[in-house]
């Protein structure tokens, strides 16, 4: 329950991975405000529809602005917001269904525009809010309420999808590593261009994969997640693809394009180059004079 509003009636299940993401977002936004000596109101959280999107109502302490819109449209909302107000810090929080299924059509265009926003995807491999249907990242053969024979579709590989779409900055992490995640979010927000922080954020109710992510040393099960080695060159797209194609989950910064010019700067530069200036309505009427 949001402290600022006791009437708010949404709750996450105990142990839900999204709690960790919430703490990392809170800390990253508060820190950003302090570091830049800006009010936290300069940040806007654009939330998708899903358990994950409810993060926007659960922020404790100083409150950023928020938009909790409709299913799958965080990216275009952020596009209009950032294009109209480049001075604002825009953060998206979305789920694997919201971002990679109904909202998938928006990833490519925003990546190509290189809008200067940071998207945090809480991937739990399931539709949580609608109670446990298969999502794009649900593994093959997994039984859910909509896949009684086990899932027939191959799972989507989000990290690879993002790189192919042309995302400028990509990090991957786990909801349990709150401090490290906070650091990645901060770096992503500082980055001038479209950045994604993809978080494995387990759903304890419908797809509890904590054990698989962590592995079990005693039983000789390797963890799914592993830290990206020190020597990885995040500026190298081929190296980034190699990590993204790994069947396990790399943790850290996968890709960071070096020559990123964000959308709003491209527009400013184009206007400078062409000398386009605003004509008054009176001047525009004059072009139509008989």
């Amino acid at each position, binding site marked *: 329950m*949001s402290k*600022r*509003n006791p*009437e*708010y*009636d*949404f709750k996450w299940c105990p142990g839900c991975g999204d709690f960790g993401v919430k703490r990392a977002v809170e800390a990253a936004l508060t820190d950003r405000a302090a570091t830049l000596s800006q*009010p*936290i*109101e*300069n940040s*806007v959280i*654009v*939330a998708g529809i899903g358990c994950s999107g*409810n993060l*926007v*109502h659960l922020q404790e302490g100083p*409150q*950023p*602005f*928020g*938009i*909790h*819109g*409709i299913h799958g*449209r965080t990216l*275009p*909302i*952020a*596009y*209009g*917001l*950032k*294009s*109209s*107000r480049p*001075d*604002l810090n825009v953060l998206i929080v979305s789920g694997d269904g919201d971002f990679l299924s109904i909202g998938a*059509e*928006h990833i*490519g*265009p925003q990546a190509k525009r290189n809008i200067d926003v940071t998207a945090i995807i809480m991937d739990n491999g399931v539709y949580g809010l609608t109670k446990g249907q298969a999502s794009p990242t649900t593994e093959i053969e997994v039984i859910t309420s909509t896949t009684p024979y086990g899932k027939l579709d191959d799972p989507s590989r989000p990290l690879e999808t993002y790189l192919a779409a042309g995302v400028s900055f990509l990090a991957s992490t786990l909801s349990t590593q709150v401090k490290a995640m906070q650091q990645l979010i901060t770096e992503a927000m500082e980055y001038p261009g479209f950045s994604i922080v993809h978080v494995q954020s387990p759903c304890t109710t419908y797809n509890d994969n904590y054990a698989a992510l962590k592995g079990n040393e005693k039983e000789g099960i390797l963890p799914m997640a592993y830290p990206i080695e020190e020597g990885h060159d995040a500026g190298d797209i081929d190296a980034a693809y190699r990590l993204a194609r790994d069947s396990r989950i790399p943790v850290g910064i996968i890709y960071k394009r070096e020559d990123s010019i964000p959308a709003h700067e491209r*527009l*400013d530069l184009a*206007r400078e180059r062409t000398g*386009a*200036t*605003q*004509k008054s*309505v*009176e001047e*525009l*009427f004059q072009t*139509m*004079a*008989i």
Partner: protein
Amino acid sequence: MSNNLVVRFAGEGGQGVVGGSEILAAAAAAVGYHILTFSTFPSQIKGGPAWGQARISTEEILSSGDELDVLVALNQYAYDHNVEELSSTGFVVYNSEEFELDDPRAIGLPADQMARDAGNPRAANMIVIGAVAQLADFPLGYLEEFVTKRFSRGRPGDEQIIEGNIKALHMGAEAAKELGMSLDSLESPKSIEGERILIKGFEAACLGAIAAGLDSFIGYPISPATTMLVYMESNLHGSDKFVGQASSEIESIASLIGAGFSGKKVMTSTAGPGLSLMGEGLGLAWMAEIPLVVANIQRGGPATGLPTKTEQSDLIVAINPGHGDMSVPVIAPGTIEEAFWAAADAVNWAERYQGPVILLSEASIAERQQDILKPDMSKLVVENRSVSDGSEGNERYKGDAVSPFPVPGGPGAYVANGSEHDEQGDTTHLPDVHIRMTERRFKKLELLMDGHYEAENTDSSIALLPWGSSKGPTYAAFQSLRSKGEDIAWYYTMYLNPLPTALLDELLSKDLVLVPELSYLGQLAQILRAKGIKAEPITQYTGLPFKENVLEARITEIVQERAGRMLVS
């Protein structure tokens, strides 16, 4: 002498029929005539039946015209399908290189050959325009003046082009003269007071929005609304302005929500298919109380329908574009001047009541070109949403109607929420909150019920109430009926939702309200009946606008049949 000339250029898409009508109209406007153009073409780049029409008059023009004085037919099909609209005194000018006609009213010109002879193979249109001018006794000097102005672009070769075009005009005129035919000559133009401009409907709408302080425009190409996006891309580019091409209408509306939330005045343009895709987003704007304007330029039919034709069949979906309890404000201009003011009002309304507004226009208005007096900018009112100073804390949705709008970066952080929410924008399912917030959203509409409306001969118990582009032809029919002594009232407003309260009261007292509208369903009539008004539609669903005489006949028929019924009973 006649005070009115209607010329239609008919042929195939890509043959310059629209250009031909626009050149003739622009030349006439330049020398002081009133003009109005209308065009219709299929949804393809080259080929398919197309025509462009110019109406030229010494009087103010209300519609694109009923009968043709001159039909320019560039192929047999164009002749066959348009000749029945030729007036009994009219002429046909046709391209005799394409086909032969056995019609005593027809003048064949080998226009392409003549253009080559004139030294400008691209001047076939000018040959035809010269012939038309001759037929109508329209001084060639006007056209020469216009051609000189149009092609003096400061480029090498301008002079040659001008010379070739002028020569072509004269060759066309000579050819027509030799055949010895002529129309009633057109009266000289009357002098018009004030600054005149030649403007298209979409330009007027864009300028109205810019005048009201538009900041961002984001759209996706779709006929017949693409022109607005294109106009904005090249005319709205101040340092704090943004224009973008979205990847779909779903993106357009979602991005407008982000932009409107950011504190900016925002707009998109679309047509039926795009409006359908925007339904959910418009619901979000209604729920979260985000000011934004969607210009929906109506075309024909459900699905892809008739992309390049005109219709008035989106009124119901404009008011209820998505699921759930909502009623989106709609302003529908009936003329080009009104397109300017309606767009400014749409931006103002969005600011005033803090929510989505639909500017509902039509292909036939958006694409029409007309001479108008430059809008009087001293009459322009620019409204800005009331902005929060933080004194409400986080309670953005406080109170039972409009409340101050917190702008990101400033005080009053809240969540703009599309789920039902409490004062701070946090999700709730409590019945009493849903009741309170639903009533709040509808109450805001009361701020928009003071719209202006026209009323004439209001004592009559039978009234006309057209909307949108049907205004012009209906008003012409009304004037004609009145001059014949028919007792009928005239009402008109561009504020269709919510309707002005005073207008509603007047309409409720009528025995019959006739609503000419271009659709099968008769959507405004349906809406009025739901409000207890005895409304009946006069419908047409051809993809084309009403003609004045057809409308007059249908109104007369209904009124007389009614009178007959009353005598019998």
